[in-house]
């Protein structure tokens, strides 16, 4: 550990630390443009110059390029260094347009800060300024090249860090231009990070353009609710309206970045049709009346049909507070335990995943970056949980082998080995790879049950002979690895897969390897839902409703009409109900059909809310603003306001757990304390509401106390010959399939036309070519889509996005088989 002195203060840092980082540890922020913690050193801007006075390096050097070594004496305030840095700023300002008044970066611009702090104030250059022509980079990122100071961060993030290849550096010398080959939407689903990374206003947030300065905004540390990874964000709001979302550093989760879905999905909270008032039978009612009505209706139904006639369904997007409250409400009211998933298979897969994750095996995205082997099993990171793709990319950059076992045409922004097997063969394929990787020496340490499990794994894969040699190659890479990670999806995979992935990861972990397990779950708090549901759901919510016993359905931030193909069937099932009560902030079809609507607030408003990400990490979103209908939607902008009121328009909605609490009190229960009275701050000692017998807390993470449960119980069942026809898989896309961002007018601009995709061989057999329109006939009706053709996917499979623009969607219940004669070209 080298010890050095910076500005008269001594510090010891790990070997390999750059001087600029060592200084930062002392709280000395050496000016920089090109250096970025995530991107590393470059040495291009020359702004971080310091004077080395003693030690192995002497004179003016760049602190980002020099590693801290013993005996160094460094001065950041030496007059030579200060004057050099001032000159660098002067150089960078030669061509800068000084258009801060009309630049959105103004107020949080690194170039402004460094210019002022560097002391450059008088312009000595009298020549003409260089100018550029800007490009249209699509709906998210605004391009203004004249402001560029050529720090190279954009190109390095775009090409090196994230692996996309449509933005780079053109031209030479002081004409160097950062942009695309031609105007057009950035292909990179992480493109919004250019906005955060750019030290000045070359890349600015297009949807937030001219909405305000940093200091005009109400801001708060928040979380991204658009997948299960729980990326940390900072939300900005103005005039009761969410304006923008930026990445917030969390070294274990998302690092410095977020994906574009996370950045531009927030607008669901500004939806003009968002329910803002309590509604009963289609009529607006007062908030109190709404609560009373709900209590009365539920009370009456319980009296008439018993407590079992009430079904509560929460969702994986509910906060943990809401999930806990819902569970408590059901318990104290004597109702059956709440559901959190519409499909029973989803609940089983999530619970299976939760049961396998424990402290030793669950890995963060940070740990994935350090993996030397990554197996993606039924996981499509870019589409399902984009930031996980960026994590795997970092591992790949450091030399990790990446293998994908998936029937879909999975795209990752780097080379990887893709075994395109059909869903029914994925378990076998993964098991065979692990079996072949673990043989001989590396299995000596295995205990009885682990050894038995390994023994039970099949070693032969009788299908797809063209894949065999590649499977061997992957097995060898896994055998060589020291830090393998299995990333397992829970969307298209069978119910057995998450459990198997867990067992395989634990098995690898019992050898000398430090193995990791990483699931992609369906929703920002799916893990919480998994922890809160006491048993697997035996049948789906729809089937339960069809049973006819349920008379009252309480939906909490849940939409029955999402991902449900057979809407007529659902409508029929709803006829059985006496009362449908919906608590939500989305203007969903369920809200439309509800007898009673009690609007709630999303995580950006009112109260803090807690979410558990897919690795068990408890994280809290603090409110960005107080809530209420955006001024742009109520006030017509007239100033001064014509009328003065003492309440915030649209200020009635409360967080779902608060609504549940009011409902609970209105139901006249004997216990009068709030449902989450003891929930408190999850970081504090007092979290007894959570600290029940089934949970274990480890640092910031929470796991099931039983985990790993049913370890090594996975069986590879021989695949049954299935019905003839094409298996239709409902899949996620980065844009258009996720529920919340589907209500974001901003994120909608990122959507592309939904397409079905099938293998070229199947397309040839079915007489389909790229761009055709084809109809898929299901039992309940027809879906018409454009045809896409791929060769990097399994045959016998049709991939259809669960896209909001598709009228009919494929049921999430797998598998759905469509015979050839029910696929026709239009």
């Amino acid at each position, binding site marked *: 550990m080298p010890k050095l002195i910076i500005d008269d203060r001594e510090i010891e840092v790990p070997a390999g630390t750059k001087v600029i980082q060592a200084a930062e540890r002392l709280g000395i922020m050496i000016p920089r443009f090109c250096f970025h913690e995530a991107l590393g050193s470059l040495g291009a801007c020359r702004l971080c110059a310091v004077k080395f006075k003693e030690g192995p390096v002497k004179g003016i050097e760049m602190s980002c390029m020099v590693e801290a070594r013993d005996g160094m004496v460094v001065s950041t305030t030496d007059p030579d260094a200060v004057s050099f840095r001032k000159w660098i700023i002067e150089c960078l300002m030669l061509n800068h347009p000084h258009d801060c008044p009309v630049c959105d970066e103004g107020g949080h611009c690194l170039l402004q800060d460094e210019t002022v702090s560097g002391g450059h104030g008088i312009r000595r250059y009298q020549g003409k300024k260089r100018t550029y022509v800007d490009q249209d980079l699509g709906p998210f990122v605004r391009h203004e090249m004249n402001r560029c100071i050529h720090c190279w961060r954009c190109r390095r993030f775009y090409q090196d860090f994230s692996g996309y*290849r*449509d933005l*780079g*550096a*053109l*031209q030479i010398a002081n004409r160097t*231009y950062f942009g*695309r*080959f*031609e105007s057009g939407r950035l292909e990179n689903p992480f493109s919004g990070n250019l906005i955060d990374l750019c030290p000045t206003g070359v890349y600015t947030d297009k949807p937030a353009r001219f909405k305000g300065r940093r200091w005009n905004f109400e801001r708060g540390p928040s979380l991204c609710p658009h997948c299960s990874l729980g990326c940390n964000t900072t939300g900005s709001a103005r005039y009761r309206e969410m304006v923008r979302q930026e990445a917030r550093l969390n070294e274990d989760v998302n690092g410095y970045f977020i994906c574009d879905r996370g950045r531009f999905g927030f607008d669901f909270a500004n939806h003009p049709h968002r329910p803002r008032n309590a509604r009963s039978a289609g009529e607006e009612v007062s908030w109190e009346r709404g609560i009373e009505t709900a209590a009365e209706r539920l009370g009456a139904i319980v009296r008439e049909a018993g407590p079992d006639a009430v079904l509560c369904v929460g969702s994986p997007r509910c906060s943990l507070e809401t999930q806990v409250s819902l569970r408590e409400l059901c318990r104290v009211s004597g109702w059956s335990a709440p559901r959190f998933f519409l499909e029973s298979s989803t609940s089983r897969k999530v619970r299976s995943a939760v049961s396998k994750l424990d402290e030793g095996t669950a890995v963060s995205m940070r740990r994935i970056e350090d993996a030397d082997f990554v197996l993606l099993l039924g996981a499509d990171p870019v589409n399902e949980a984009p930031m996980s793709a960026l994590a795997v990319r970092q591992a790949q950059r450091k030399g990790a082998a990446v293998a994908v076992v998936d029937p879909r045409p999975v795209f990752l922004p780097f080379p990887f080995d893709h075994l395109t097997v059909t869903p029914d063969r994925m378990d076998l394929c993964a098991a065979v790879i692990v079996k072949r990787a673990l043989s001989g020496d590396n299995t000596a340490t295995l205990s009885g049950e682990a050894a038995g499990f390994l023994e039970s794994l099949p070693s032969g894969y009788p299908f797809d002979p063209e894949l065999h040699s590649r499977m061997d190659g992957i097995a060898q890479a896994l055998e060589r690895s020291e830090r393998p990670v299995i990333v397992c999806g829970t969307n298209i995979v069978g119910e057995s897969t998450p459990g198997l992935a867990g067992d395989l990861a634990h098995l690898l972990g019992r050898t000398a390897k430090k193995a990791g397990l990483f699931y992609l779950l369906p929703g920002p708090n799916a893990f919480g839902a998994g922890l809160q549901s006491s048993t697997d759901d035996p049948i789906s919510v729809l089937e339960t409703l069809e049973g006819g016993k349920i008379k009252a359905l309480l939906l909490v931030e849940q939409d029955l009409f999402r991902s449900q193909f057979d809407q007529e069937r659902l409508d029929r099932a709803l006829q059985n109900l006496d009362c449908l009560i919906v608590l939500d902030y989305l203007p969903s079809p369920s809200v439309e059909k509800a007898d009673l609507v009690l609007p709630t607030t999303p995580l950006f408003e009112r109260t803090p809310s807690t979410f558990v990400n897919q690795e068990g990490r408890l994280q809290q979103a603090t409110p960005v603003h107080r809530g209420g209908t955006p001024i742009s939607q109520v006030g017509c902008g007239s100033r001064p306001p014509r009328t003065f009121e003492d309440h915030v328009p649209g200020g009635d909605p409360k967080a779902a757990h608060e609504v549940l609490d009011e409902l609970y009190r209105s139901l006249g229960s004997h216990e009068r304390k709030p449902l989450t009275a003891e929930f408190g701050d999850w970081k504090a000692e007092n979290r007894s509401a959570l600290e029940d017998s089934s949970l274990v807390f480890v640092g910031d993470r929470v796991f099931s106390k039983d985990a790993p449960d049913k370890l090594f119980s996975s069986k590879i069942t021989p695949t049954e010959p299935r019905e003839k026809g094409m298996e239709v898989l409902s899949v996620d896309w980065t844009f258009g399939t996720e529920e919340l961002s589907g209500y974001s007018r901003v994120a909608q601009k990122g959507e592309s036309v939904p397409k079905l995709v099938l293998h070229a061989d199947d397309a040839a057999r079915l007489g389909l070519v790229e761009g055709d329109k084809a109809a898929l006939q299901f039992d309940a009706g027809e879906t018409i889509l454009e045809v896409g053709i791929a060769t990097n996917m399994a045959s016998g499979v049709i991939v259809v996005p669960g896209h909001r623009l598709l009228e009919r969607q494929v049921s999430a219940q797998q598998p759905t088989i469509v015979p050839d004669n029910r696929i026709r070209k239009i």
Partner: protein
Amino acid sequence: MLPKELEQELRKRIEESDHPREEVINVMYAVQNHYGYMCDEAVHETAALLGMTSLEVDELATFYDFIYREPVGRFVIHACDGLVCWMFGEESVVDYLCRKLNIRIGETTKDGLFTVLPSVCIGYCDHAPAILINGEFYGSLTPSRIDDILDDLRKSHCALVRDR
């Protein structure tokens, strides 16, 4: 579209290379030679041949001065304005050429015959002032010698056109 033979020849070349990307400049030269300059289509063709994106090819095409991203004339004159060549003559070769051809630096004559590009030292300082025309070197230039060279090139071009 590239002619079949050229495309096949380039494909073969790329396949034989241990590192296809090493061939990018050769491919750009060949494609530029076919199109007359590195037009957008030429960039796309190069990218497709090498498995690169058009942006990646353009990052290189716009960097180098012997790849022309804008239309050029039949004869591309790289006129050396390096130190030694510039020291010779009351008027630099670049200035003289531009005046003679009635164009500005970087422009092409109306008849599409000549383009004048300024060039760094071309390594013929012992024959200063010197220029390259379509890669061929002409040295020890004087105004009258430049006139003769331009006349010869014009004549040879006319003869070529006539023969066709």
